[in-house]
C-alpha cells in the first residue's frame, strides 16, 4: 500500500503530459473521458492511503533515502488521514468539474484538461508533503496553473482580474520563499519533523517571527484572509465556472489546511508562544468572516458574490484552525469538506446561468431562470447551507468550532460568525428569488449600468451540468452522520500529535494510538437559527422592498450606506492597493508574533 503513495500526485501529472502529446489526435470527448478516469483513479488511491493511515500515519521516502540518526536526507510524503483525505476530496471536486465541463471546450489539444490534472496533482502533493521545499514547489505549481486557468479565455472581458490575481499571488510566493530561506538559515532543516525538533531547541526570536509572518502571510493570501483577500472576487469573475468550483472548493481552503499543517508539525513544539498567536488568528478569522459577509451581500454579480462568501467562510475556518486545539481542528476539517462541496456546487450553478441565460448579473437576470426550477431549488439550498442550515457536514464542523470557541470563553463569537455567514446566505437567497422566481422590485436604471458581458458555451444539456451540482450539494447534506465526525476527531488528534508524528517520520518509531479529540456536547440550536434568520430575513427585505413601508426601507438604506460605501471603496480593483494591504497584514502578523 505504501508504494502507492506518490500516485495521487504522479498519476495526474503523467497523464497531463500524455494528454498534451496525444491531445490533437484524440476523438471528440476523448480528453474528457481520460481526465475523468484519471481524477477518479487518483482519488481512489488517495482514499486507500487514507484508510491505510487511519491506524498509523506513515512516511514515504522518495528513492528510499531514509533518515539517519534523526536527520532527513531525502524528501518525504507524510500520509495521514487528513492529508490523504484532502487529496481524495480534491479528486472528487475535479471529477465533478470534469463532468460539468463535458464538451465545454471545443478546441483540440486538451490543454484545459492537462492544466486541470496538473492542478489536481499539485493540490494532492501540497496536502501530503512532509517537506518545506516541496510544500513551496506544490504551492507554486498550483498557483501557476491557477493563473493559466484564470486567463484561459483570452477573449474574456474581465481579463484584468487575472492580472490582479497573478500579481498578488506571485508576491505571496516570494514571501513564502523568503520565509523558507529564513527558517532554513536558522535551522538547516527542511523536513517538517526535523524543523520542528530544531526549533524546539532554539529560543524564539525575531527571525522566527519574521519567518512565520512571511509564510503565514503567503498562505493567507491564497487562503483569502482579510486583508490579503482582495484578489478573490477578480479571479472568480474571470475564471471559467468549473475552475471557480475548484478555486473556492479546495484551492483557497487548502492554503489554510497548509497553515494548520505547518503549525502542528513545525511550530507547535517551538518556542513560538501560543498566547499571542491564538487570539491573533481568531481575530483575523473573525474580521475575515464579517468583511466577507457584508461584501458578499452587496454584490450583484453572482460569481463575485459567491467568491466573497468564500472569504466569509474562510474566516470561520481560520477561527477553527487558529484555536490551536485538536477539537477545533476536527471541526475545521469537517467545515472544509462541507463548505467545499456546497460552494463548488453553487459555482457550477453560476456556470449554468452563464451558459443558459447568457449572464451572471443578478439584476439583469431577474426572472431569467424561471425555466430551471430544479437549478433554482439547489441554488437556494446552497444558500441555506452557507447560512448555517443545521444539517450536513458544514453544520457539523461549525458546531465543533463553536464548542471549542465557547470553551475558551469567547461566548459572543459564535453568534457573530453565524451572522456573518447568514449575510452570505442572504445574498444567495436574494439571488435565487430574483433570478429563478422573478421576485424583487422592477430594475430601473440599475439594469442599464455596465456589467461584464460574459457567456459560456451554451449547447450543452442542462441535466448534464446539473448532475454534479446535485451530487455535490447532496453529499454535503447527506454525509452528516456520526461516522464523519468520528473520523474527523480521530484524524485531527493524529494531525496534532506533533512529537509522535516526528518520531514516526524521523526515527521509524512505532505509532502509539492517540485518543481522538473530545466529543462535543449536544447541539446548540441557537447559532444555526441566527444564521438562517439573518439570511431569510434580509433576503425577504431586499426582495420585498416595494411592499414595505417606504420610510423603513429608506431608513435602513441610510443607516447601512456608510458601511457598504466604505467596503466598496476598499475593494477598489487597483492591484497596487491590494499589495499594500498585503504588506500591512504581514507586518501586523509579524509585529504581534514578535512582541506578543
Amino acid at each position, binding site marked *: 500500500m505504501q508504494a502507492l503513495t506518490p500516485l495521487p500526485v504522479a498519476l495526474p501529472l503523467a497523464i497531463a503530459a500524455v494528454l498534451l502529446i496525444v491531445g490533437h489526435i484524440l476523438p471528440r470527448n476523448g480528453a474528457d473521458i481520460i481526465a475523468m478516469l484519471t481524477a477518479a483513479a487518483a482519488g481512489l488511491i488517495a482514499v486507500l492511503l487514507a484508510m491505510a493511515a487511519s491506524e498509523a500515519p506513515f512516511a514515504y521516502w522518495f528513492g528510499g533515502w531514509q533518515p539517519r540518526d534523526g536527520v532527513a536526507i531525502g524528501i518525504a510524503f507524510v500520509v495521514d488521514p487528513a492529508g490523504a483525505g484532502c487529496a481524495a476530496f480534491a479528486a472528487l471536486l475535479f471529477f465533478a468539474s470534469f463532468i460539468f465541463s463535458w464538451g465545454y471546450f471545443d478546441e483540440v489539444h486538451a490543454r484545459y484538461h492537462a492544466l486541470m490534472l496538473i492542478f489536481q496533482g499539485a493540490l494532492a502533493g501540497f496536502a501530503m508533503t512532509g517537506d518545506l521545499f516541496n510544500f513551496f514547489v506544490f504551492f507554486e505549481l498550483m498557483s501557476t496553473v491557477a493563473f493559466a486557468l484564470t486567463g484561459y479565455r483570452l477573449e474574456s472581458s474581465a481579463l484584468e482580474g487575472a492580472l490582479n490575481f497573478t500579481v498578488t499571488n*506571485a508576491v505571496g*510566493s*516570494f514571501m513564502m520563499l523568503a520565509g523558507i530561506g529564513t527558517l532554513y538559515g536558522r535551522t538547516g532543516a527542511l523536513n517538517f519533523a526535523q524543523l520542528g525538533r530544531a526549533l524546539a531547541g532554539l529560543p524564539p526570536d525575531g527571525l522566527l517571527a519574521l519567518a512565520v509572518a512571511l509564510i503565514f502571510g503567503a498562505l493567507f493570501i491564497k487562503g483569502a484572509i482579510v486583508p490579503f483577500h482582495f484578489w478573490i472576487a477578480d479571479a472568480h469573475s474571470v475564471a471559467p465556472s468549473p475552475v471557480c468550483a475548484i478555486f473556492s472548493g479546495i484551492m483557497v481552503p487548502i492554503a489554510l489546511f497548509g497553515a494548520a499543517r505547518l503549525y502542528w508539525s513545525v511550530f507547535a513544539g517551538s518556542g513560538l508562544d501560543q498566547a499571542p498567536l491564538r487570539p491573533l488568528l481568531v481575530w483575523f478569522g473573525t474580521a475575515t468572516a464579517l468583511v466577507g459577509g457584508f461584501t458578499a451581500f452587496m454584490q450583484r454579480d453572482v460569481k463575485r458574490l459567491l467568491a466573497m462568501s468564500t472569504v466569509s467562510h474562510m474566516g470561520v475556518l481560520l477561527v477553527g484552525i487558529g484555536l490551536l486545539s485538536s477539537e477545533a481542528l476536527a471541526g475545521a476539517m469537517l467545515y472544509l469538506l462541507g463548505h467545499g462541496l456546497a460552494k463548488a456546487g453553487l459555482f457550477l450553478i453560476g456556470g449554468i446561468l452563464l451558459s443558459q441565460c447568457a449572464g451572471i448579473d443578478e439584476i439583469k437576470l431577474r426572472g431569467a431562470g424561471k425555466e430551471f426550477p430544479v437549478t433554482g431549488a439547489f441554488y437556494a439550498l446552497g444558500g441555506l447551507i452557507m447560512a448555517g442550515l443545521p444539517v450536513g457536514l458544514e453544520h457539523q464542523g461549525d458546531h465543533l468550532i463553536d464548542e471549542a470557541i465557547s470553551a475558551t470563553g469567547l461566548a459572543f463569537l459564535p453568534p457573530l460568525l453565524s451572522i456573518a455567514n447568514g449575510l452570505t446566505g442572504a445574498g444567495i437567497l436574494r439571488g435565487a428569488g430574483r433570478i429563478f422566481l422573478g421576485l424583487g422590485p422592477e430594475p430601473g436604471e440599475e439594469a442599464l449600468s455596465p456589467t461584464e458581458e460574459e457567456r459560456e458555451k451554451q449547447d450543452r444539456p442542462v441535466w448534464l451540468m446539473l448532475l454534479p451540482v446535485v451530487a455535490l450539494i447532496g453529499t454535503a447534506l447527506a454525509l452528516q452522520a456520526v461516522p464523519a465526525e468520528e473520523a474527523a476527531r480521530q484524524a485531527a488528534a493524529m494531525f496534532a500529535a506533533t512529537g509522535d508524528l516526528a518520531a514516526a517520520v524521523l526515527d521509524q518509531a512505532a505509532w502509539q494510538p492517540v485518543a481522538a479529540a473530545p466529543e462535543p456536547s449536544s447541539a446548540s440550536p441557537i447559532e444555526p437559527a441566527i444564521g438562517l434568520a439573518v439570511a431569510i430575513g434580509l433576503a425577504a427585505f431586499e426582495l420585498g422592498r416595494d411592499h414595505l413601508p417606504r420610510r423603513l426601507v429608506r431608513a435602513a438604506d441610510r443607516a447601512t450606506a456608510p458601511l457598504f460605501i466604505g467596503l466598496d471603496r476598499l475593494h477598489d480593483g487597483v492591484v497596487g492597493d491590494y499589495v499594500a494591504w498585503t504588506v500591512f497584514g504581514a507586518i501586523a502578523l509579524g509585529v504581534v508574533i514578535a512582541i506578543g
Partner: protein
Amino acid sequence: MSHAAFLLPAWLFAIGLYGVITSRHFVHLIGCLTVIQSSTYVLLLAVGYRTDAAAPIFANLPIGTPAVDPVVQALVLTDIVVGATVTALLLALALQVHKRTGTLDPHELRPLRR
C-alpha cells in the same frame, strides 16, 4: 558571513514592493515583481554561503572538502523556473489586455466591481 549581507535582500524586497504598489504601468509592475524575486535569490545564496568553501561539485574534490550549501542553490533554480513562467504568463496577459483596452495603467484597468 556578516549579517550586513542580509540587508541587501531586505532592501531589494522592500524596493520591489514599493514599485509594485505605486506602479502606473503593468510592464513596469512586472519588472518590479522580478526585483522582489531577485531578493529571494540573494537571501537564499547568502544563507548557504560558507567562507573559503568550494562549489558543491565533488568531481575533482576529495571527500570532506568544505562546500557551500547546494540545497539553497536547488531552491534558487526552482524559483528561477517558476519566475520565468509567471513573468511570461503575466506579459502575455498584459499584451492581451492592452490589445483590448489600449491601456496598461492599473488605475484605469479596474475590474468592474459589485
